[in-house]
């Protein structure tokens, strides 16, 4: 740049509204931890944000290969943020494979921080770059701002006197990266310094090495001219209150804990480890001091069956899983439906069928949740729409399950389960009460026990073992109305099928009516969504409304039963678009139930919708 004369250390501070950073490296490079530390700092600083951890299903895929790339994406800003971002402004590429995987979604003119030691001949080969290609030094990255530095070497130099081995030194290099990013976005180091001290309290030499490297990364920017621009992202103007950052699985877990406390019941989780649901089991296992019982079962079937057993004895019983496990639980879910006992079944959906894409997201289990039991076996189905929303979804699922004596399926998915966002958490008092319908004395004439005699909600009483004088039998065979005795009478069977269906339909009397999340109750186009597409649809619809488009957004919490007013509401819109990460499952339900000519929009790539995709589709529908 002839003529310009930038003096030493003269950096420009640029105020920006929001930014997307993608940390990308080998599975062993610590990108998840780096991303989470950056996220926590941004959150504590007051930015609104949304994250998207995107990692391979192999724990340690071959080093340096495309299969082993682990990414963590964070979108933070001074405005409200609902998605992790369609594309990135900054890409941290620890090796050639990371660049290869993530470059396609880096914005034109975006910034690349490349660790040159990950781009040697060997790494380029492992990433399958063509012979002779050298992206950092040829012209292929001309459209981007590339900062090259040998992070491995810089870390090594910084820790030369630390007395640590090569491996441990190499492992600290993610802290150098974090230091660079903190400088670049003008963020304080305090939070991470505290984190390191706590994490390595018993290994001071490791703590010191990490602290030294973090500072070195930060100071490297101060003392070199590597970055001309420093970005400032001010705190977001969010509703006032106290916030924390939370992932979907964590929110689900504490939603269950809160529901159990509000119901005055012990919490029992029967579960078998499966990606991406296991974190709920891990989180709940920490609450033993609160009496939470977690039971790691021998298989998925035992997971749900143990929960059925616990529910039978009067616990708030839960089983957690993902698609393949859900398939195994279906027979037992039918038993719970037949017994009419409370049970919360949580399916953290992932790409299917079969083993499918274990670490990638999808919404393709909706119809299985609706119909995946033999016989006429309706139950309540609801879905969470964002990481923090998993809390209230889990709480509501528990409340309905207990108060309506029915199994409930809560659908989340890998995207919101692992993603995180700031959450203005509720205080304990603001949570609804939950009232179990226990029966401790005979409810029939002449002291008869009628386990299937119902109240006005068509709900039967919960009679638990240990209740004196209330001994009775229940089972999977069809039962006579009220007495619960085995009955093969054909008229009685139809009566019971209808009662069980009507009981679930009646839940609609106790859930909120549908209303637009954005836009009006009448518009040219309605975007109807459910589950984790919430952020992308909301952002797209809001932006289009600002551009003057006549569009609205309704997002469904309950899919069975639907809100009572949904059919009437849908009639107010000329066109209905249903974007889903499946081949049109909600679409089928909506078209079948309401006879409206809704149009679907499918994405089945193991990735969430981008805002741009939804916007383009809406524009296409409107034109």
């Amino acid at each position, binding site marked *: 740049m002839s003529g310009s004369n930038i003096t030493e250390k003269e950096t420009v501070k640029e105020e920006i509204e929001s930014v997307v950073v993608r940390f990308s490296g080998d599975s062993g490079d610590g990108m998840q931890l780096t991303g989470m530390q950056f996220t926590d700092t941004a959150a504590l600083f007051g930015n609104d944000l949304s994250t998207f951890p995107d990692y391979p299903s192999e724990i340690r895929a071959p080093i340096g290969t495309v299969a082993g790339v682990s990414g963590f994406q964070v979108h933070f800003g001074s405005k409200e943020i609902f998605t992790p971002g369609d594309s990135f402004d900054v890409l941290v590429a620890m090796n050639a494979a990371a660049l290869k995987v993530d470059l396609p979604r880096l914005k034109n003119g975006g910034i690349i921080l490349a660790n040159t030691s990950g781009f040697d001949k060997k790494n380029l080969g492992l990433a399958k770059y063509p012979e002779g290609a050298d992206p950092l030094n040829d012209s292929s990255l001309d459209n981007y701002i590339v900062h090259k530095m040998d992070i491995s070497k810089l870390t090594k130099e910084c820790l030369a006197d630390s007395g640590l081995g090569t491996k441990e030194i190499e492992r600290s290099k993610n802290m150098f990266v974090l230091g660079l990013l903190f400088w670049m976005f003008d963020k304080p180091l305090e939070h991470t310094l505290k984190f390191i001290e706590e994490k390595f309290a018993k290994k001071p030499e490791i703590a010191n090495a990490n602290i030294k490297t973090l500072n070195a990364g930060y100071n490297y920017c101060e003392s070199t001219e590597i970055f001309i621009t420093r970005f400032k992202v001010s705190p977001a103007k969010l509703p006032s209150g106290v916030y924390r950052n939370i992932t979907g699985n964590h929110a689900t877990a504490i939603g269950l804990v809160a529901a159990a406390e509000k119901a005055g019941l012990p919490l029992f989780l029967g579960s078998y480890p499966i990606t991406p649901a296991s974190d709920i089991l891990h989180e709940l296992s920490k609450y033993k001091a609160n009496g939470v019982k977690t*039971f790691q079962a021998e298989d998925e079937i035992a997971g749900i069956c143990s929960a059925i057993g616990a529910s039978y004895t009067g616990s708030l019983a839960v089983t957690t899983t993902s698609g393949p496990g859900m398939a195994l639980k279906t027979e037992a879910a039918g038993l719970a439906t037949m017994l009419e006992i409370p049970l919360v079944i949580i399916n953290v959906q992932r790409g299917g069928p079969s083993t499918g894409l274990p670490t990638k997201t999808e919404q393709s289990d909706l119809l299985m949740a609706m119909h995946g039991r033999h016989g006429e076996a309706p139950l309540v189905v609801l879905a969470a729409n964002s990481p923090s929303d998993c809390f209230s979804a889990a709480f509501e699922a528990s409340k309905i399950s207990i108060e309506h004596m029915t199994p409930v399926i809560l659908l989340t998915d890998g995207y919101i389960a692992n993603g995180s966002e700031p959450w203005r958490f509720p205080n304990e008092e603001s949570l609804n009460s939950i009232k179990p319908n226990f029966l401790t004395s005979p409810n029939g004439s002449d002291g008869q026990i009628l386990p299937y005699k119902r109240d006005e909600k068509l709900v039967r009483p919960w009679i638990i073992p240990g209740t004196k004088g209330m001994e009775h*039998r229940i089972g999977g065979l069809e039962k006579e109305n009220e007495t619960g005795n085995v009955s093969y009478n054909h008229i009685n069977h139809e009566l019971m099928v209808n009662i069980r269906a009507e009981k679930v339909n009646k839940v609609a009397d106790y859930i909120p009516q549908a209303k637009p999340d954005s836009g009006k109750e009448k518009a040219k186009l309605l975007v109807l969504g459910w589950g984790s597409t919430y952020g992308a649809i909301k952002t797209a619809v809001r932006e289009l409304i600002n551009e003057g488009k006549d569009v609205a957004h309704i997002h469904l919490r309950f899919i069975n039963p639907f809100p009572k007013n949904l059919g009437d509401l849908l009639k107010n819109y000329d066109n209905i678009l249903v974007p889903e990460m499946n081949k049109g499952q909600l679409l089928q339900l909506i078209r079948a139930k309401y006879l409206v000519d809704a149009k679907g929009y499918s994405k089945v790539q193991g990735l969430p919708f981008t805002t741009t995709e939804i916007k383009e589709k809406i524009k296409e529908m409107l034109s």
Partner: protein
Amino acid sequence: METVTEQNIKLTSKDFSSDQEVKWCPGCGDYSILKQAQTIFPDINVPKENIVFISGIGCSSRFTYYMDTFGMHSIHGRAAAIASGVKAANPELSVWIVSGDGDSFSIGGNHLIHALRKNFNFNYLVFNNQIYSLTKGQYSPTSEKSKVTKSTPYGSIEDPFNPAELALGANASFVSRTIDRDPKHMQAVLKRANDFKGASFVEIYQNCPVFNDGAFFIYTDKETKKEEALLLENGKPLIFGQNDEKGILILDGIKCKVVNYKEEGISPENLWIHDEKNKTKAFLLSQFINMEQDGEAFPRPFGVLYANERSVYEESMVNQIIAIKERKGKTPLGKILSGDKTWVIA
């Protein structure tokens, strides 16, 4: 502290009989099992409302409907998994699993072995009739090889499970065998199972008069039972035979031999003395099914093959909760909601 109320003391077997009509085939061994259970329950020192029967699917599993206790007739093979949840959630309950050879050893095999390994303090009754009865006569995992059934018209080609061996292999802490046609023996074994703290595995030889009639008659018929059945008593020598003249010796490590100790002048105390806590010996006992000497099968052991208490799942679970509670204290819900790191937006 459990207190035995006056009312509990006064209960009779009738108090454990539900108002439902019993619908097993005439002559089914299940009638006897039901009767023996109802007979012992007034004496097992458990309040009636704390007794829970959990069954799977099969003829055996209808048992639950006929006991006037709490009960759940569940789905095929899953009784042990459901009972695990019942026991973990409420350790105070006296839980009885009722299952059959198909229910336990085929479709429910995984739950059986893990329930025994985890060692819940419950009683696991398997009615073994060596046939699928409710589905009208297919071979089961305990049917003998070459058995001709509806699904094996040319004979089964599979070797059967040996239930006692399987249970011991799964690290069961209590393994026993009894038979429908010996009521006193069954009552004694059921009482032992109830008193034992841990998963009590009880294999009950049960006659299916329709699809596998007489499979176990040699162990109870007058002419044969003394030769074919070996009644185990802890601390007593293994003696059988028409005139109690035969005994079993352990020779050369783990080799077993049947001897006529009376003729050979061997003192009974030099015979194999039954030791319920010896797992190696229990395993040997489980192998009698396959052993023979001079073309004659070894007698079939009945009674408690193995009983050795170890830590019980639900008790360990509760103890861990108590210990963590004492160390950390209960986290208030407000603290769980807020977590450790919060910030304020004004």
